[in-house]
């Protein structure tokens, strides 16, 4: 039942997004604009500053993710549909997992566009260790989305939610961003530093485990008014 409900919520979000394409387009536009602004500012005569690529990639992911989180839950606010989901005869944490998977999928699509873009503009060798790079991106995205999904759901009925979400989210996800940036930087080094990247990946996985567990544990209590 738990996984079925999570899947139903994910499929419903996907069906809405396929129709409206609102969140995907705005997230992509925002993320690509972010990379382009950095590229115009930092790349001089075809030379990119060393070590800038990982930071720019993760800043774009973080900002685009915040936008996607806000829009995803704004959709549930219209018509108070989150209350209908909470009323369903299912474990309430399953709703959290469904929303989390949706955000992770959306950000993964954004990353499919962002990674080649950053690699192109900043001449960064993102595809030398593709598997480890993909794992770092997934682990970082899950960590960011795990905290973000919980906070976005909690703040849904707060009038100043758009301001409060980044204020609450960014300080707590700093370890994820540091892990993502440092791990990515290690893989972009010449030669790639796999040991360091693997260490940061392990830290990210530990962070993901802690925050997904905490979110599952607290979701029901936090969502009851």
């Amino acid at each position, binding site marked *: *039942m738990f996984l*079925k*409900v999570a899947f*139903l919520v994910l499929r*419903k979000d996907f*069906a*809405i997004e396929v*129709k*409206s394409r609102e969140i995907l387009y705005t997230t992509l536009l925002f993320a690509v604009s972010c990379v382009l602004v950095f590229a115009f500012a930092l790349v001089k005569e075809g030379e990119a500053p060393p070590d800038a690529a990982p930071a720019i990639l993760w800043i774009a992911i973080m900002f685009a993710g915040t936008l996607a989180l806000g829009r995803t839950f704004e*959709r549930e606010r*219209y*018509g*108070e*549909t989150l*209350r*209908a*989901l*909470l*009323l*369903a*005869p*299912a*474990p309430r944490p399953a709703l959290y997992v469904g929303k989390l998977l949706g955000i992770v999928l959306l950000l993964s699509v954004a990353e499919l566009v962002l990674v080649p873009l950053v690699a192109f503009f900043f001449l960064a060798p993102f595809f030398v260790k593709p598997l480890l790079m993909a794992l770092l991106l997934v682990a970082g995205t899950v960590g960011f989305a795990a905290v973000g999904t919980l906070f976005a759901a909690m703040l849904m009925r707060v009038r100043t939610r758009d301001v409060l979400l980044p204020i609450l989210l960014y300080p707590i996800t700093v370890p994820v961003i540091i892990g993502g940036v440092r791990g990515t930087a290690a893989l972009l080094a010449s030669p790639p530093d796999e040991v360091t990247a693997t260490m940061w990946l392990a830290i990210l996985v530990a962070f993901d485990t802690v925050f997904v567990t905490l979110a599952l544990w607290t979701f029901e209590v936090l969502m*009851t*008014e």
Partner: protein
Amino acid sequence: MSDDFDSVRLTDVSRHFGRRRALSRLSLSVRAGDVLGLLGPNGAGKSTLLGMLATLVAPNSGEILYGDRPARRWGPALRKRIGLLAHELHLYAELTARQNLTFFAELYGLDPRAVVDAALERAGLTERADDDVAGFSRGMRQRLALERALLHRPRLVLLDEPFTGLDDRSVGAVSDRLRQLAAQGGIVFLATHDLDLADGLVTRVALIRDGRLLSDETASTGLRARYRALVGN
């Protein structure tokens, strides 16, 4: 232990939001077959009470028993027996009527093929089943939302202004539906400002003002006069 109940009992239930008191030491007992009209002016606490009964709002003090068990000991099994039609309609505007009902049917563990077409027919929306809800009038949305709330044949039916936006024929159909639900052993809470519609439909009346229960009595005709006597205009 059965996953069903035939009564709902509230004992000294209070709820405040910050410094605002929404409900104050409210006690009520409702049995299967009752259609309880929740009447009171705006801000009386009717919607908060429905939210509590739906397990979406927790009381600060007091207890709500479903049969002989509190909500925290039921979990999902209790929610399977509750249907809520709130003021906000709990529909996805971007999805079609059929997609909305199918989603909620699956969420309640029902086979959509067995319930969705019949629900669309009752809502009078068979012809518009594959249109997005965003293009529906308020009355059409209201009818669809009511069917969504009743899709899983709940024991406890919580309705907040169910007649909003409905034409005369739909009002009659919804009233008949509520009587039928009560006759089949449902427990119906009906929060409304429309005293003329409530008159003759409700079997009991609870009058609430400022979060306090002013009166809990068997319904009789002349509801408006009784309301004015207790609550004022």
